[in-house]
């Protein structure tokens, strides 16, 4: 039946050009791929901005730019990486994988799905256009703390463009979240109960709930700041009875859950890859789901740990909650390791990147726990130690997971395998470059180097480690060249993937690569969280 309907509809697509087809598509797979491509574009833009920052910091003195330019670079680096790379990249994977994984033909609201994608390039253009206006792009850090981000100290329209762009990107996230939640609750195939859903789907569900609850709060804050800047609102201006720290409460009420928005789907990817390449089920499937939900819930009670030094926070509560959130994260780490225990590991690129995630995210978790101890946070807050921490979480964690996901799903998306050797060369370069860049930042922070400084004295003792970090940064940049080359040659000449090149577990591997419009003409029986595994080995083998 379904096949007949597809054939009937097919000729209509062929009458249009491929470009028109992509620009107007409501197919979740094409939209997902466009999310990924768009995110990579901003990854490279954000990376170039970071190279500018690293080049300037390599030696004391201002060699390449003035302070204002420097402030624009790190502000826009963080904004591009967080709002236009990590969050949409993971949403893109979700867009591509979630309907396939639950056996659905598409997202619940395909047109809203297209709308939420197209807001992203628009937001990206808007935010980057700040570089073209007088006064330059936003330059108060991605946190945009008033009064510095107010009209008195940053009169240029770069900050207004930033506020509008982030509002747009946030709206895109909210629409996406509604779509994911509706899709996951209403579009599951027969037999796909909630506790048979792949972990990736669970992490997207929890992430979507976080987005839905947190992002509107940020949006309200962005509106207030916009009003303050342009119409004299006085929300954050003490002279008009406003409260400076109110912005920080609003901002972090979103932006701390946003850290989990940026790491939970990455954990989902890892939880798909590890079982497949260990040939074992995920250890403690339900415990993993509860841990994900616990991180989501606790994630709303830790925001003020970004504000310990403001002197306007109830310290013990936020300290306790921040310590506690380490527990479900630790549970996940042990579950992943136990998944490999007694497994049969094959070291293909998705697993290699996943191991990069495990080893580096562990550091990001541990060095974060230091900050839960409030007095230690007093010492380390706003130093390079924090820069090391966020990059071990978001680069060592999310970015390695993104590449695990790319190498894992590229065969499904395109029908061709990526080159394994190039993938491993890329991994080695990224791994070395990443650690060279960010590990010394721990020591810089401990010795007192504040973040967001354009220059430092040669007598401060920070020169050597900064030079190391800069060299590492350029190694990361070089490490991305094999990836671009890999994608280029694999799209043309890559090994054909077949339906299921990895002997995987979840439903996206039960259809062709790439899948047809509306995904499936038939589905295997769904009797566990690994329907494709069951179909391959017989349900009795594993259960």
């Amino acid at each position, binding site marked *: 039946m379904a096949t007949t309907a597809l054939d009937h509809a097919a000729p209509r697509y062929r009458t249009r050009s491929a470009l028109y087809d992509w620009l107007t598509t409501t197919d979740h797979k094409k939209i997902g791929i466009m999310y990924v491509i768009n995110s990579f574009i901003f990854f490279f833009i954000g990376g170039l901005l970071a190279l500018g920052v690293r080049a300037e910091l390599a030696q004391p003195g201002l060699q390449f730019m*003035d*302070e*204002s330019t420097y402030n624009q670079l790190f502000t826009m680096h963080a904004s591009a990486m967080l709002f236009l790379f990590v969050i949409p990249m993971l949403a893109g994977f979700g867009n591509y994988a979630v309907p396939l994984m639950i056996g659905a033909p598409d997202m619940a609201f395909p047109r809203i799905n297209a709308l939420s994608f197209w807001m992203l390039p628009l937001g990206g253009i808007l935010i980057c256009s700040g570089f073209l206006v007088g006064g330059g792009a936003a330059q108060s*850090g991605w946190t945009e703390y008033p*009064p510095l981000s107010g009209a008195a*100290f940053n009169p240029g329209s770069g900050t207004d463009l930033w506020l509008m762009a982030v509002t747009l990107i946030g709206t895109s996230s909210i629409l996406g979240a509604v779509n994911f939640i509706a899709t996951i609750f209403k579009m599951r195939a027969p037999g796909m109960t909630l506790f048979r859903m792949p972990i990736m789907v669970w992490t997207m569900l929890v992430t979507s709930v976080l987005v839905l609850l947190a992002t509107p709060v940020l949006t309200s804050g962005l509106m207030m700041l916009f009003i303050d800047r342009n119409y004299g609102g006085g929300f954050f201006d*003490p002279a008009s009875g406003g409260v*400076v720290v109110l912005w920080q409460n609003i901002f972090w009420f979103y932006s701390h859950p946003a850290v989990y928005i940026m790491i939970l789907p990455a954990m989902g990817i890892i939880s798909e890859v590890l079982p497949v390449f260990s*040939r074992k089920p995920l*250890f403690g*499937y*339900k*415990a993993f789901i509860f841990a994900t939900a616990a991180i989501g819930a606790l994630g709303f009670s830790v925001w003020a740990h970004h504000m310990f*030094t403001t002197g*306007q926070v109830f*310290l*013990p509560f936020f*300290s306790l909650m921040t310590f*506690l959130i380490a*527990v479900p994260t630790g549970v996940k*780490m*042990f*579950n992943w*390791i*136990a998944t*490999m*225990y007694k497994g*049969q*590991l*094959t*070291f293909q690129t998705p697993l*290699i990147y996943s*191991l990069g995630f*495990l*080893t580096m995210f*562990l550091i990001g978790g*541990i060095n974060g726990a*230091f900050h*839960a*101890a*409030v*007095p*230690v946070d*007093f*010492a*380390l807050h*706003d130093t390079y130690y924090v820069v090391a921490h966020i990059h071990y979480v978001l680069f060592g964690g999310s970015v390695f997971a993104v590449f695990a996901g790319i190498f894992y799903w590229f065969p499904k998306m395109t029908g061709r395998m990526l080159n394994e050797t190039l993938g*491993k060369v890329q*991994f*080695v370069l990224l*791994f070395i470059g990443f650690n060279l860049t960010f*590990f010394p930042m721990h*020591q810089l922070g401990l*010795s*007192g180097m504040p973040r967001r400084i354009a*220059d*430092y*004295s040669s007598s401060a003792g920070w020169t*050597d480690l900064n030079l190391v970090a800069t060299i590492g940064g350029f190694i990361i940049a070089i490490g991305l060249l094999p990836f671009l080359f890999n994608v280029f040659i694999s799209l043309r000449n890559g090994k054909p993937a077949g339906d299921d090149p990895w002997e995987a577990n979840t439903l996206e591997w039960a259809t062709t690569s790439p899948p047809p419009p509306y995904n499936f003409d038939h589905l295997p029986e769904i009797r566990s969280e690994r329907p494709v595994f069951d179909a391959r*080995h017989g349900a009795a083998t594993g259960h």
Partner: protein
Amino acid sequence: MTTPRRSGPSPALVLLISAVATAAVFLGILVLQVPAGTPAADYPSQISDQLANVWASFFPPVATTEQGRRTHDLYTLVFIIAAFVFILVEGLIVFAVVRYRRKPTDTELPPQIHGNNALEILWTAIPTAIVALLFVLSWQTLNVVDAREASPGEVRIQATAARFQWTFQYISSDDNQTVVYDQLTPEMVVPAGRTVHLALYSPDVIHAFYVPQFLFKRDVVPGKLNVFDFNVDPAMVPPGPEGATFKGQCAELCGAQHWAMQFTVRALEPKEFDAWLQAQIDAQSAKPSPAASGAPTGVVLELSAKEIAYDKTTLEAPADEPFAIKFSNNDAGVTHNVAIRDASGTEAFTGEIFPGVDSRTYAVPALPAGSYTFLCTVHPNMTGTLTVK
């Protein structure tokens, strides 16, 4: 149905090479740090010194306040637990990677283990216990570090952080809380051993008072007066009028010249501090209007400041005769001055500090020929060379 896959060239090797290469680069950097010309026999001791430095670099600086020492102890405790967890978990990962590689003979599926409730409860409970312990210990430390008890004889200072400078007002200890002395140079002089009660005030944006050797920072928030107490450890302060100096700088992005917003804390023995403060108060009340320096004679050098930088980096003046510097401060609301130091670092002349937009003409006494540094006392990064010949 399942065919064994080729597991690639030496599976765990990729990870191993990455780790070894990273370690090798770090070691190479250590070797490069040994000064050139060091005899070969001294290399081992040089390298071990370097290793000791590396080990120390994983810890905050030695604390110079009693509060900071408590924080340092807490850091060390967290570090030990963190190192233990790190080695345990990374060890488990490496063990799994090396031990459970798929062999060509592995055609059967491995045991399909779905979980183990006892184990999962265990690795939930143990971390919970560890973080609960850490929370209690850090809370106890916090109650010491962040304690506020008015003590007799405490010194009250208000630090004013404005873009992009620090000034320090000494407040009288009586209930009137009047400013007895306003220190316009970015140097806070404090007595060791006594409690210093510091209030933080900002007239513009958020700044943060940060002294790495205190292991402490606190934001300076407009519209809200933040306070904290600290006691400099007397053991850290040598006797004499110089005392011990600790560097500090703004730790919250406050605009373009954020990086240049630096200050120092100079700790003195209590009696030296009392003498210093009295001398400053006396000098302040004795000082006539410093702007009235009379009509300048001889050479007049022009210098101006904008955006926390001088417009010139070199000046020339005649030797052995007085000259004048006409200094224009073009930074609205920001204080600058011109001071002159000789090659040994001794201050030969210090001009009055004043806020812009304004100008002063400084009468500089005769200087012997030589090369001098001129700088802004408020922003020590604003410097240039004065050649006297």
